[in-house]
């Protein structure tokens, strides 16, 4: 699963007086459905077991989300 294609970044203003250690680059989610207005027929499908595990029959619409990404 390539998550990076479904993530954006921006660099917020950093003040020398920021009370918490500043995060120089913030990441946010650009979920797969943003790039598909209408699903095309015949997309590659997950196996039934994998579809249940991932929450989608089509791997194309799975971007996953993990605490380890450190988005928040």
């Amino acid at each position: 699963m390539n998550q990076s294609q479904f993530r954006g970044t921006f660099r917020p203003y950093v003040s020398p007086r920021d009370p918490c250690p500043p995060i120089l680059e913030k990441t946010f989610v650009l979920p797969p459905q943003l790039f598909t207005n209408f699903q095309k027929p015949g997309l590659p499908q997950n196996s039934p077991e994998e579809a249940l595990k991932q929450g989608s029959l089509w791997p194309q619409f799975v971007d996953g989300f993990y605490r380890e990404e450190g988005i928040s």
Partner: protein
Amino acid sequence: MWVYEKKLLYPVEVTTCNPMLAKYLMEQYGGADGELAAALRYMNQRYTVPDKVIGVLTDISTEEFSHLEMLATMIYKLTKDATPEQLEKAGLGAHFVNHGHSLFYENAGGVPFTATYIQSKGDPIADLYEDIAAEEKARATYQWLIDISDDPGVSDALRFLRERENIHSLRFRESVEILKEERDRKKIF
């Protein structure tokens, strides 16, 4: 009419007694962008949207109820054997006084559910755009829950639920495209 299947949409495994996590999960149970709000919103809007997209609202509303059931299971398991002291420590003291060990439709801050969380405008595009926004907000809520959850079983179920919001959002976007096609069709005649 509905047919009930006596099993969860996705297996919910809870490994810890963690009333604090249960309190946070209540945001998706009885919160503004939660599963109850979603289910009730779509179930009501479906009567006045164009015929071609009624089924999308019915199907997604039905699925949201199955998500609500998963959340109820998680919250119940995380709190069922907690002592009043443990609940109080987790910030659920007021909840315990009012509801005992039972669940209630409240958000993570203890604010009870209200119909003002949802809308039905009777304008197909206004309603579908509200639905897309609701799905994206629910997705974001799941992200922050995943970030704060320290129970791997709960996190796994939350990841499943988050992905379903992606798909629902896509289906509502497709519904908008279907309605846009109506205009192009008129041009042919």
